[in-house]
C-alpha cells in the first residue's frame, strides 16, 4: 500500500529551497487544529460562553484521553519498528484488576502494588517481544494471543468480577494515597491522570529526541537488515519496544483503577483500536520507521475532542458513529497529505 506519512518531526532542513520541516511540524497538528476549530464552532453555548472551551471541559477531555494517550505512546514505539500490539487493552484490564486486588485483597501498600503491576506489564510486553523477535512470528498474532491470555489471567485473578476500591485504614481498604489518581491538583483543577499523561509524553519526546535507543528504533523500522549490519542488536530493540508498550499499558491500567475506584477484568476492551487510531492519525506509518510522539499525542487528543463534542451536542449515538468514522478518515487524510507528493 502507499503509506504516506509524516517524516520524523525533528530535523530542520536548512537549505533555502527546501520547505522547512517546521511547516510540516505544524501540519502534524493540522487535523487536530481543524477538529478543535470545528468543536468551538459547533459547541453549545451557555450564557454566551462556549461550553467546549470551559477550562473544566478541556481538562475533562485531557483526563478522559490520558489512558488512551499513554497507551498510544507505548504503541508508537512498537509501530515504529513495524510491529503492532493488540494486547494493550487487555494488559490495561489485567493491571487494573491486579492493582485493585493487590490493594484490597492482599492489603499491599500503594508503592509495592504499583511496582508489582508495572513489572507485570513490562514482563508481559517483553515476553511478547521475545516471541516475535526470536521465532519470527508476526506481532499481530502474538499480541492477539497475548490479548486473550491477559484477559483470561485478569478474569481468573478476580474471579470474573470487578474489584471495588474503598479507602480507609482498616483491613480490606486501600491507602488514601491511591485516591490521588482520582483527584485534581492546582486547587482542584488539573486531574492527576492528565499530569501523568503529560509527564509520559514529555519523557517519550525526550527519549525519542535524545537517546541512541530511539535512533535504533527508527533504523530498525526503516530497514531491519541495514540496522543489523550497523551493529544494532535488533532483537533487544524489539523486545524493548514491546516491554515499553506493556509497561505503559500497565500504567494506564493503574490510572484506570484509580479513576474508577475499581479494577475489572473487562476494563480496556477495544482500547487497542483507539490507541492504534491515535498513532496512525498522528502520522505514524504502520510499515515502521516513520512517526513521532507529538503526532501520537495530537492524535489521541483529537479523538478525545471528537468524543467530547459529539457528546456535548447530544448527537444520536448511531449518527455519532458515522460522523466519527468520516472525521477519522479525513483527519488521517489531512495528516497524510504532503504538498508536492503524489
Amino acid at each position, binding site marked *: 500500500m502507499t503509506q504516506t506519512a509524516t517524516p520524523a518531526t525533528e530535523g530542520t532542513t536548512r537549505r533555502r529551497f527546501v520547505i522547512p520541516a517546521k511547516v510540516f511540524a505544524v501540519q502534524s497538528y493540522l487535523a487536530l487544529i481543524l477538529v478543535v476549530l470545528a468543536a468551538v464552532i459547533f459547541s*453549545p453555548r*451557555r450564557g454566551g460562553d462556549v*461550553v467546549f472551551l*470551559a477550562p*473544566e*471541559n478541556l481538562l*475533562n477531555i485531557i*483526563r*478522559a484521553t490520558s489512558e488512551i494517550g499513554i497507551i498510544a505512546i507505548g504503541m508508537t514505539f512498537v509501530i515504529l519498528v513495524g510491529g503492532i500490539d493488540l494486547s494493550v487493552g487487555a494488559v490495561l484490564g489485567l493491571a487494573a484488576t491486579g492493582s485493585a486486588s493487590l490493594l484490597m485483597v492482599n492489603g499491599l501498600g500503594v508503592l509495592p502494588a504499583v511496582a508489582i503491576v508495572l513489572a507485570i506489564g513490562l514482563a508481559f510486553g517483553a515476553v511478547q517481544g521475545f516471541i516475535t523477535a526470536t521465532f519470527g512470528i508476526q506481532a499481530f498474532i502474538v499480541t492477539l494471543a497475548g490479548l486473550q491470555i491477559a484477559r483470561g489471567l485478569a*478474569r481468573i485473578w478476580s*474471579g*470474573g*468480577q*470487578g*474489584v*471495588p476500591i*474503598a479507602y480507609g485504614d482498616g483491613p480490606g481498604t486501600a491507602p488514601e494515597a491511591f485516591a490521588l489518581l*482520582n483527584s*485534581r491538583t492546582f486547587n*482542584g483543577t488539573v*486531574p492527576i491522570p492528565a499530569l501523568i499523561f503529560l509527564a509520559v509524553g514529555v519523557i517519550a519526546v525526550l527519549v525519542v529526541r535524545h537517546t541512541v535507543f530511539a535512533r535504533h528504533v527508527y533504523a530498525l523500522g526503516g530497514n531491519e537488515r541495514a540496522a543489523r549490519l550497523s551493529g544494532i542488536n535488533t532483537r533487544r530493540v524489539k523486545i524493548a519496544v514491546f516491554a515499553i508498550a506493556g509497561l505503559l499499558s500497565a500504567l494506564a491500567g493503574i490510572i*484506570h483503577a484509580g*479513576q*474508577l*475506584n*475499581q479494577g*475489572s477484568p*473487562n*476494563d480496556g*476492551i477495544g482500547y487497542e483500536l483507539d490507541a492504534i487510531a491515535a498513532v496512525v492519525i498522528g502520522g505514524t506509518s504502520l510499515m515502521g520507521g516513520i512517526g513521532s510522539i507529538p503526532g501520537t499525542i495530537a492524535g489521541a487528543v483529537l479523538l478525545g475532542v471528537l*468524543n*467530547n463534542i459529539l*457528546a*456535548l*451536542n*447530544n448527537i444520536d*449515538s*448511531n449518527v*455519532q458513529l458515522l460522523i466519527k468514522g468520516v472525521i477519522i478518515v479525513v483527519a488521517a487524510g489531512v495528516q497524510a497529505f504532503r504538498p508536492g507528493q503524489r
Partner: protein
Amino acid sequence: ACGTESDAPGVDDGEGGEDTAAECEGPDGDYLIGMSQANVGEPYRQQMDDDIRAAAEDIPQFEVAFADAAQDNSTQVSDVENFLAQGIDLLIISPNEAAPLTAVVERAYNEGVPVIVLDRKIEGDSYTQFIGADNAEIGRAAGEYVAEELLPDGGNVVELKGLPGSTPAQERSQGFAEGISGNDGVEIIAEGVGNWLRAEGQSQADAIYQANPDIDVVYAHNDPMAEGAYLAAESAGRTDEIDFIGIDALPIPSGGIKAVEEGRLSATFVYPTGGREAVETAEQILIECADVEKEQILETQLVTQENASELYTELGGQ
C-alpha cells in the same frame, strides 16, 4: 424443500421436556448440566454463573459445564451444539438474543433435553421453563421512583443508556419513560450512551454535566454506569445536587447494593439473575421428576439506604 431438511422453527410440536420427565432417573443418577451464557464480560451474567455454580455445589448429583458465547449469537449456537454433542442431561441457557437462538434451543428440546431459559426469552415455546425478570417493569419502577419519590415537584433527568440495540437497554428506556409519564414536571434533558461500562458512563457524564447546569437525577441503565456518572459528578463537585440511580443491584462488592449502602447511589433495582432458581428447577426436573411451571417471573426490589445491607446478605453477598 429440494432434498433439504429444515432446522427452521415451526416444524415440531413435540413435548420433549415431558418425555424426559418420563425417563427420569431420580436421585440415583449423575447429571451433566450445560449452562450456555451469553457473555461473562457483563458483571450481571458473571453473577448468574456464580449463582448457578454456588447452588449446584449443594447437589452432589449435578455437574455443571459453563460456556461463554462472548456476546456472539453464532458462538452461542455452537456452544449449544457442543453441549448436545456431549450428551448433556439438561440445558440452561441465557440467550444473547431471542431469534438467533430459537432454532438450536428447539433442537435441544426436541431431542429430549429439558431446557431452562434464563433472563432473555426465545421465540415460541420449545423450552421447559423460562425464569426471568421484566426489564420494562424495572424501568417503570425506576421511573415511578423518580417521579414520585425523588422529583415529586418535577426536575431534570439525564439518562445513561446501555449498548444500543440490546433488548435490556431498550426496555429499561421505554419502561422508564412510562414510569415518569405520570409527572409532567420530570423531563429527560440529555441522554448518553455508556455501553454498560463504568468508564464510558464517566466520560459521557463529564460532557453532559458541562452542557447542562441543572441536573437533578441521573438514571443509568445499570449500576456501573451510574457509578461512573457519580465519579464524574465528584470531580465536577456536583454530587450534592444530583441523585444517582441504577439497575441490577448485584450482591457483590463492586455491585450496586454496596454503592447504595455507601451512599453513592440513591437507589438501585434488583434485577435477579435467576441462577439459584434455575438450579432449583433442574433439581425438580431431574431429581424429583416433577413437572414444572412454564414461566417463573422474578420480582424486582427497590434498594435504598434503609434495606441495602439487609438485602446484600439476603441475596448471598459476602
